[in-house]
């Protein structure tokens, strides 16, 4: 079990999302950075779609009431166990009674804590993701609070073997694996981000000046930004002829422009439908970059074709498959060692 000593700024249970219910007006929710979530799960032997804790900017303080295998992926919020810095993107064994805490946000703003076995909360409409406004899913449908006890399911046999293996090098209440996922998944720590987009459905309805400004000028993420969306500040964008739009489906990464002229990027907690003109859609391959961006960051939008965006997405999925195979190989090596140990 995880005892929450301090909840942090916004710590919620999230899996990749609640799919299949948008037609009923139920939003997707889910991890802001699903890619980091998936790798975090794979690193502890979980199904990649298992739920983890999404930790935002100021991390929580969590006591482990039982031995656990964990991993932290996503933004670097200076994780520590019993006061000692631990490394991310790798399995870490945490001994019963140890305390996980966080420090400064070095890079990115959201980190995922996956625990072998998964966060044990009842799924609601097929998902463990927290839908805050409807108090649905997650831990009682809300962010974690001081004094909460979050249950963890029992780890699988591969994770158990790794726990056994790592416990041999235990010191100060934890033990890190000596291998990690390559840092090819880290993102630039710059506050100037190039974000690839494809044309939105209503791109051609915008004025020439708006279309030029969208790609030539930076847009700053304002503090009025959350899991639902980021409000941007930049040159005013407008339609050539004002038009009443009918509500229709929107996506993670849809950039819509309300009549005020300042764009909004829709994210994990977006509504299922929206009625503002869509100037662009962020390419899936850059979802992690936008999920880890923070207020004050400057975004530079780069146009790519839908075809290119899909090619990049397929390449990234292929890379993830390779990483998964690599991790599973590591797990099996440990398991074989473990079993041959029994024979001796």
């Amino acid at each position, binding site marked *: 079990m995880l005892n929450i000593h301090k909840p942090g700024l916004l710590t919620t249970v999230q899996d990749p999302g609640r799919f299949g*219910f948008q037609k009923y007006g139920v939003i997707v929710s889910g991890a802001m950075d699903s890619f980091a979530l998936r790798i975090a799960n794979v690193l502890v032997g979980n199904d990649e779609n298992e739920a983890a804790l999404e930790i935002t900017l100021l991390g929580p303080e969590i006591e482990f009431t039982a031995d656990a295998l964990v991993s932290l992926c996503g933004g670097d919020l200076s994780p520590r166990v019993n006061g000692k810095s631990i490394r991310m993107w790798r399995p870490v064994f945490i001994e019963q009674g140890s305390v996980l805490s966080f420090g400064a946000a070095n890079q990115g703003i959201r980190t995922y804590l996956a625990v072998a076995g998964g966060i044990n909360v009842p799924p609601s409409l097929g998902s463990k993701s927290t839908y805050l406004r409807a108090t649905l899913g997650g831990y009682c449908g809300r962010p974690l609070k001081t004094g909460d006890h979050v249950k963890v399911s029992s780890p699988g046999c591969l994770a158990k073997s790794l726990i056994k293996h790592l416990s041999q090098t235990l010191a100060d209440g934890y033990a890190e694996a000596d291998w990690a996922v390559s840092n090819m998944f880290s993102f630039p720590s710059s506050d100037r981000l190039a974000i690839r987009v494809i044309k939105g459905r209503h791109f051609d309805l915008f004025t020439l000046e708006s279309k030029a400004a969208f790609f030539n000028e930076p847009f700053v993420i304002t503090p009025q930004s959350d899991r639902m969306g980021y409000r941007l500040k930049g040159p005013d964008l407008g339609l050539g002829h004002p038009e009443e739009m009918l509500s229709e489906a929107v996506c993670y990464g849809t950039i819509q422009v309300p009549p005020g002229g300042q764009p909004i990027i829709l994210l994990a907690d977006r509504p299922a*439908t929206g009625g503002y003109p869509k100037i662009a859609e962020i390419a899936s391959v850059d979802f992690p970059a936008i999920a880890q961006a923070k207020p004050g960051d400057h975004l530079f939008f780069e146009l790519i074709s839908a075809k290119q965006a899909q090619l990049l997405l397929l390449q990234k999925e292929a890379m993830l498959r390779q990483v998964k195979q690599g991790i599973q190989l590591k797990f099996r090596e440990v398991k074989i060692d473990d079993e041959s140990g029994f024979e001796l």
Partner: protein
Amino acid sequence: MEYSIQPLGDHAAIIELAKDPSPEVLNTISMVASALDAISPEWMIEYVPAFTTISVFYRPEKLPRAEPASPYDMVCSYLHSMLHNIKADSPSPPRVVEIPVCYGGKFGPDLPFVASYNGISEEEVVQIHSNGEYLVYMLGFAPGFPYIWGMPKVIAAPRKDSPRQQIPERSIGIAGQQTGIYSIKTPGGWRLIGRTPVDLFVPEKSPPTLLKPGDKIKFKAIGHDEYLEMRRLNHAEHS
């Protein structure tokens, strides 16, 4: 069937079936939804019907590779062949859902405003609202929240200048020429005229919503006692 397909980002396709909403378009959209349910391809995540469109979300990596065709090209060809096979049969008769409403009082604090704004009595507002013929166009904004078409113009009223922080679930509101039912607690600026004892969103049920696109709605005025009795029965059923 006339339609166009466009990409919506790199993992969805939007099928547009008309420029303006109408009961006919609504019927076509539900036929497309049924067809998608029937074939339910492995690459499809879900679909989202709206006023004149239906969007299909998919996983590009789940589609068979067929260079130089992109996953989007593949989805389009699947959708084209599916859409060509849909027969424009006569619309099935709509389901009529009766929604009891306790109008006015603490449940409808804006009923006096709606009445005076339109220069009629509160009783007339209730009478007109509960005698209207309504059609559910789509669900959205919140779980189970119906976009309803068909409210008589004579009881239209503008939104509040500053929205209420919290509107109780099951409140019936008016905004411009639209009427709607708040399915969950949410901030909102609609003028509240009453409340229904019936839940619009119950996540434990399948489907989780009371209404679906294409439903006809009849509002029925009920008294406060009847409201409380229905709530009591509702609680008993769920616990």
